[in-house]
């Protein structure tokens, strides 16, 4: 446990460092170091991987058992996706949104006491981690959607105001934001839907019924439906642009609130 905690702290430190690194040019005007941000974050992800493996070995189970663990894995997945996106699509500005999100999630994870959610001995030991991991992937994808939508709204505002955004980080074009937002939204919704289905199966195997309208389940289905409206609007009706981005941010908020109250 100790080793995993140490590695976890190292990862947290590296993420924080990566975030501070994105702020340097805004504070001092020196742009040179910004390009190391994905590397620092990737190093953090490596330490984080080590922490998760060590934790899993120490507990002798998949480290997606308690809420802190789930949040930790969520942060880890998000960083990995972000690193891949930055390398593939050069959307540097994601730093400024994704890294603080990751830090918040990790701090919450670190603050929560161990074993918040006592789990009844699972009948199928792989179903619960699978259910949670699918949801985690979905939420991580949704983080990206949120970041892309937020950048869209910012760039749009700057363009409308006749003051093209002069952020220190190169901002992606509206088109790029739209594309990344749309793709990640598609995957997020697909994974979250799968997550709800596996959750229902998990329920069935544990309690003998699929759905009980417990508050957490109700909230889950509600946020899923709100997000569904966004998905239908953007992918079905072909909604684009500012309003679609704003709507997406609302959908993200619904899912995020539900998630923090797992």
């Amino acid at each position, binding site marked *: 446990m100790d080793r995993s905690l140490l590695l976890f702290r190292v990862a947290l430190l590296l993420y924080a460092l990566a975030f501070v690194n994105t702020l340097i040019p805004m504070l001092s005007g020196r742009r040179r170091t910004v390009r190391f941000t994905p590397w620092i974050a990737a190093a953090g992800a490596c330490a984080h991987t080590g922490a998760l493996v060590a934790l899993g070995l120490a507990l002798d189970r998949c480290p997606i058992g308690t809420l802190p663990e789930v949040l930790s894995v969520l942060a880890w997945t998000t960083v990995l996706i972000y690193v891949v996106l930055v390398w593939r699509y050069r959307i540097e500005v994601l730093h400024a949104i994704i890294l603080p999100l990751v830090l918040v999630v990790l701090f919450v994870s670190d603050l929560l006491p161990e074993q918040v959610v006592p789990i009844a001995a699972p009948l199928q030991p792989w179903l619960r981690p699978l259910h949670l991991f699918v949801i985690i992937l979905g939420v991580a994808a949704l983080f990206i959607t949120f970041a892309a939508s937020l950048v869209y709204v910012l760039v749009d505002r700057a363009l409308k105001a006749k003051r093209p955004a002069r952020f220190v980080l190169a901002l*992606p074009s509206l088109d790029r934001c739209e594309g990344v937002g749309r793709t990640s939204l598609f995957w997020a919704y697909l994974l979250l839907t799968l997550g709800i289905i596996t959750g229902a199966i998990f329920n069935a195997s544990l309690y003998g019924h699929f759905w009980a309208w417990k508050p957490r389940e109700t909230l889950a289905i509600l946020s899923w439906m709100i997000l569904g409206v966004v998905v239908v609007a953007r992918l079905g009706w072909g909604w684009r642009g500012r309003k679609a981005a704003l709507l997406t941010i609302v959908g993200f908020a619904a899912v995020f609130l539900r998630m923090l109250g797992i």
Partner: protein
Amino acid sequence: MPIYVYGMNHASAPLEVRERIAFPEDGLVEAVGRLVAIGPVKEGLILSTCNRTEIVVHAPADASAVLKAFLVEERRAASEELDRHCYLRADGDAVRHLFRVASSLDSMILGEAQILGQVKEAYSAAVRGRGIGTVLDALMQRSFAVAKKVRTETGVSRFPVSIAHAAVSLARDIFGELHDRVGLIVGAGKMGRLAAQHLMASGVRTVIVVNRSLVRGAELARELKGVTAEWDRRFEAMERADIVIASTAAPHAVIGFDDVLRVSRARRGRPLFFIDIAVPRDVDPRVNSIDNVYLYDVDDLQGVVQANLEERRHEAESAEAIVEREVAAYLGWLRSLDVAPLIVDLREHVRNVGAHELARFRSRLGALTPQQQKTVEEMTEALVNKFLHHPIQAMKRIAANGGGDRLTFLREVFGLSAGEPRRETGRPGATVEGRDAAPHHPESSGAEAKLGAVEALSGEPDDPR
């Protein structure tokens, strides 16, 4: 390191003078040849653009009189005129000036990109005119590196400062790459034509031309390999287009709010970018308030350009800091070159001692296998290197900090005579071999000694075995 820059730029001389003094491009190589043929000038380079004419030389003594005479002779300039408009920068100031010029910090349009290319051309012309020796070569290479550093590490060249480039940059902020975008040209006049050409140069492949007179519209469309549409159907064309450039001579707006609202609905939120370069304006200003529609008129673009210029000026501050650091580093390096002949001498001296002693004791060793022979030689070499490592490191440090006297002292300590001609030619006064008429030591021309010296500086292993 006697380096001089003599000349004029856009700040010191009016265009009318600059254009007379400027060297024609095709005679530049010969001019450099004539420049370095002048007695005191050892190396020389001529940088001549529409904004500046500058002569960079390496010469042992104050060269301003010679350079002035050269300009008077070459460009038929009046002496008083040169006195009024020319400046002379020496040594550290000359290095700084050159770095600033190459980095476009001395340009009329701060951060413009052409100057580095022009400096590189001047350099290559000077090479062909045999004006470049070790001193100017190192200086020019350094200035290219500094320029690159300034360009990548500061934003001094980042944001566009012309209206046309600003418009294209805005289009990229919206659409990213412009290859798959469709441009709509409303008004086939001169402005429209220029804007369309610029748009296509930026990657747009398809253009639609709409003009009140269909014939003229078709003419421009043919020229741009695009298509034309009737004036009354301009809003249908707008549904297909992404970037609209309006430049008609109409006295009132020809693209109204309600029309664009309708178009925007049909486009289902795909962004539409209006560039209104007509005066009076062609597009109703309220159009900008429609979702996913962006409208920039001439004043807006001018505002963007002004903001970008401001940004460049701001970035220039950190660029100046980079230049300042680089000048200091370069001067330190130049000073450390002073020590190079001493290092060469010292190494040769110790090596000779080693070889001599080896020869003396060789007979006492008796017959050796080639392997043993090699080992003994290697040992001698290793001994020499190991012995010299610390003294050489110390000499470099001393020289970089400008301790010339102490180097003389070291010469004395090691018993190296100070009067060898090599030492003289090995100083940064070295010239390109064969060009300089000054008498050289038969074995080592200046360039060779210098090369040896540079090797001595760079080839020294940090950790001798």
